[in-house]
């Protein structure tokens, strides 16, 4: 049963620190039960946004609602949200059980009820038997689970996670990505997490908000964001892409800076400076002249081929730039050789036009 009221409703939130505007009037609605990512490079305002939802910073202005109730001016201990902090911030002088029960104690939950919920939360994150350990006796992954249990035991309406996997090594991080998602499905609580890692955001979230310099650039599903980036920054930040500079010639054509005309639909005005975004894995490589009829193509010379395990990454020198083309690796195929004259092509409609 999900509520029709958004779990988090942000309207016109701005945060200034002195002369610096960290968050610049953003509007955002996060639905009940969503796994939502705030994604952006460091300093983009995503952590400040999360801290404002938690109550650790007050907004300079704007409205902040949790399930329809205004909380923007409440202190953190009066808000129905809990946080998994970066590097976890577990209390070093308390064991696992005391860490997990801290929030319940502060809310004066009765002893029996508290013990029951702590046991439940510890079981949920599979830390049964570890209750007596101190944080420094736990591995990074275990600490992360304690942090989750400590927050979830309070049954928050929204769980906030600040770079929750940042402190883990790559392999553990990938494991925890799936586990976190499974956990979120199990408890059914809205998760809002902050990350600078676009791959992590794409893997875990139902929806992503991309932030840059205090503004929201795009909000959408991972597929939306990847396939239909709203602007040049999003296209460049999410995944790898080739940006071919040009200007809009008509609603279905862009003139690249070398004068070449490319079929690409856009809603931008005639003459707008844009870039055509071509994902490396959506580009195909053919020997010059072999390209399928009707496919847009650009001629170039193959400069470099890199074997990266499951794929080959080709670097093609076109007269004014270099284009990256990624093809699946098949040992039976004879790939074009370095120095060959090639064409880079794509399916009609396989590119996106983005403006600044």
């Amino acid at each position, binding site marked *: 049963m999900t509520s029709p009221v958004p779990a988090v409703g942000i309207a016109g939130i701005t945060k200034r620190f002195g002369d610096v505007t960290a968050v610049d009037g953003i509007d955002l609605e996060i639905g009940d039960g969503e796994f939502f990512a705030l994604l952006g490079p460091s300093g983009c305002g995503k952590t400040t946004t999360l801290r404002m939802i938690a109550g650790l910073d007050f*907004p300079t202005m*704007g*409205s*902040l609602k949790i399930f329809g109730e*205004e*909380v*923007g*001016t409440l202190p953190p201990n009066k808000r129905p949200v809990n946080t998994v902090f970066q590097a976890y911030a577990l209390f070093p002088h308390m064991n696992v059980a005391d860490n997990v029960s801290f929030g319940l104690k502060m809310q004066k939950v009765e002893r029996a009820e508290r013990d029951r919920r702590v046991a439940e939360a510890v079981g949920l994150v599979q830390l049964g038997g570890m209750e007596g350990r101190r944080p420094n006796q736990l591995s990074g992954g275990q600490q992360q689970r304690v942090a989750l249990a400590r927050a979830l035991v309070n049954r928050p309406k929204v769980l906030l996670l600040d770079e929750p996997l940042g402190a883990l090594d790559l392999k553990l991080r990938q494991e925890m990505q799936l586990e976190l998602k499974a956990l979120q499905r199990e408890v059914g609580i809205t998760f809002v997490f902050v990350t600078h890692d676009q791959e992590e955001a794409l893997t875990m979230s139902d929806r992503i908000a991309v932030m840059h310099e205090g503004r929201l650039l795009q909000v959408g599903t991972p597929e939306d964001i990847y396939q239909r980036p709203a602007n040049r920054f999003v296209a460049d930040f999410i995944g790898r892409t080739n940006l071919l500079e040009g200007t809009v010639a008509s609603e279905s054509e862009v003139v690249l800076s070398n004068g070449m005309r490319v079929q690409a639909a856009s809603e931008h005005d005639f003459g707008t400076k844009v870039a055509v975004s071509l994902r490396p894995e959506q580009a195909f490589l053919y020997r010059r002249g072999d390209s399928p009829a009707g496919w847009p193509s650009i001629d170039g010379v193959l400069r470099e081929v890199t074997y990266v395990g499951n794929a080959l990454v080709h670097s093609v020198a076109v007269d004014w730039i270099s284009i990256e083309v990624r093809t699946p690796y098949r040992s039976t195929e004879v790939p074009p050789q370095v120095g060959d004259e090639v064409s880079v092509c794509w399916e009609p409609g396989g590119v996106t036009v983005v403006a600044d």
Partner: protein
Amino acid sequence: MTLAAVPPEETTAGAATPEFERAAARAESRRGFLIAVPAYLYLIVFFAVPLGIVFAYSFANRNRFGEAVFTNIGFDAYRRLAEPIVRDILFRSLWLALLTTGICLLIGYPFSYYLTTRSSKVRNILLVFVMIPFWSNFLVRNYAWRVILGKDGVISRITDFLGLGEVEILFTPSAVVLGLVYGFLPFMILPLYASIERIEMSLIEAGRDLYASGWQSFRRILFPLSKPGVIAGSILVFVPSLGAYVTPEILGGAKTTLLGSYIVTQFLTARNWPVGASLSFVLMAVMLLATIVYFRAGGRNL
């Protein structure tokens, strides 16, 4: 008659506004101030005000009974500092403090280096035996030398036994320096040890690998890297040596009056409060300067 219905307390907070943010920041700042205020007030009343009184007295004059009065205030007391007696005392104090610092450095540096070359287990034990004199009663430790240096003391007895006759080191400048070195050597050793211990020993090895001799690797690598410790230790020894009072009183003689004792005399016996106050201020200025040097040299804490 029923009571009028009390309107339900507003449960939802309002949206954030710049006014609210400012008010919250002000409340936060007020909270900090309130937490600080007991100590703040205490230090103002019992430290800043006394300091101000001393400052005021340093400009005071004396009436014919020798009492400090605030008529004809001026720099008289400071002018007196240029008089030969006071100047001699100032220079003697400076010289003895410098000598003490030099000796402490000379003994303390190799000692601290030696500590860092020991295994960590041995090192901890050795350090504890530096900490004990460091923490134990200063007056008593100075007094112990009375037993050794006096005319009937142990050293005199030994020289007498060897046929060299009785010697009395007590009540000489040497005895004062000895007492100061004894008192302050731990203050040289601990910061020195801390800074040498932080140096990567592989740097010394790299130096040796690049054909530096033992002396060269000390002069060009070890010593420059341990400089913060040298400066910290030197100041921690120099500053209290300069204002020393207890040591010269116990081990020094009438001829070795130092700054600290001279100031005390101005208050307790000579009853020349303005001169005593002005000297106290000069002494404090020197300490402040040394502290600034310490921070400039990268001393992270006091």
